């Protein structure tokens, strides 16, 4: 299903837009010398460490590598659950 949707949406995109999107990702991973799967591992480990200390809104977590000219930075936006909402749920 996903690949079907992907195909439909990619048909509307020009081939150069696709080239640019693909290159953006490839260059980020080339530059930091870390394949995409490893980045997934990093995300999961990071979240598990943080959740040992605080509760995380897991569904709203955003961890990505952003480009700033030729600099890459790991940007993590990790919303935390407030203590009150915890209590309410309990």
């Amino acid at each position, binding site marked *: 299903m996903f690949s079907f949707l992907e195909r439909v949406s990619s048909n509307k995109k*020009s*081939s*150069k*837009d696709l080239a640019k999107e693909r290159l953006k990702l490839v*260059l980020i991973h*080339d530059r930091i010398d870390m394949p995409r799967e490893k980045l997934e591992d990093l995300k999961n480990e990071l979240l598990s460490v943080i959740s040992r200390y605080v509760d995380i809104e897991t569904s709203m977590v955003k961890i990505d590598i952003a480009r700033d000219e*030729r600099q890459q930075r790991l940007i993590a936006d990790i919303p935390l659950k407030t203590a009150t909402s915890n209590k309410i749920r309990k």
Partner: protein
Amino acid sequence: MTGIVATISSGKGGVGKSTTTANLGIALASLGKKVVCIDSDIGLRNLDVVLGLENRIVYDLVDVIEGRCRLQQAMIRDKRQPELSLIPAAQTRDKSAVSPADMIRICDQLKEEMDWILIDSPAGIERGFRNALAPADLILVVTNPEVSAVRDADRVIGLVESEQKGPAKLIINRLNSALVKRGDMLNAEDVQDLLAIELIGIVPEDELVLISTNRGQPVVLDQKSDAGLAFMNIARRLNGEEVPFMRLDGKKDLFSSITNLLRFGGK
């Protein structure tokens, strides 16, 4: 005199390094600069045929390094542009015949009498590339608006940075404006956005490049060629002039038309 060593590199082969080196060499010489082009692709000599100087080779770069001739003897003077000369690569040796220290020593010597030393780097990022990078004051990275060329260019730009030789400057070669218009080719902005270094030239795809190279007459000598004009503009920018980028929609702006006319003093 202290010349500037500019290394023309790309990572990927076939993007137009030798074409760029040859044309910039001729263009800079036509602007009155003393220029020497060095073919550092040992074992795969090519700059000589692109420049049309293949029949005049007696000595090469490795002969100089191994002391079989003086530097001057290996410099082939271009009869069309007396300010331009070529030091050819050795054809029957390999990259290990040259070291980064050899290149630095030769360039230091050349810097005393030349304005520009243009080094045509081999493809790849191994020894030959290291040799070409070592003496460089400036690195020009040539790429095509195409995924593999852009990826390799990014790798080279990263290596140049890590050697403290950056920031490199970018030349986008073989831009096909019809394909760009159709949305089937990365445009210059896209490539620059991806590679994030200063753009110093955009060279349109132009069949006159092939035709002139067949004849051993680099395209910058052909006043009708858009690619030739683009190379001339890069040479002017290297010399510190501010030259606006060409329009690549097929129409020439007034400035380009005038510089094109004046390019060789009406010759």
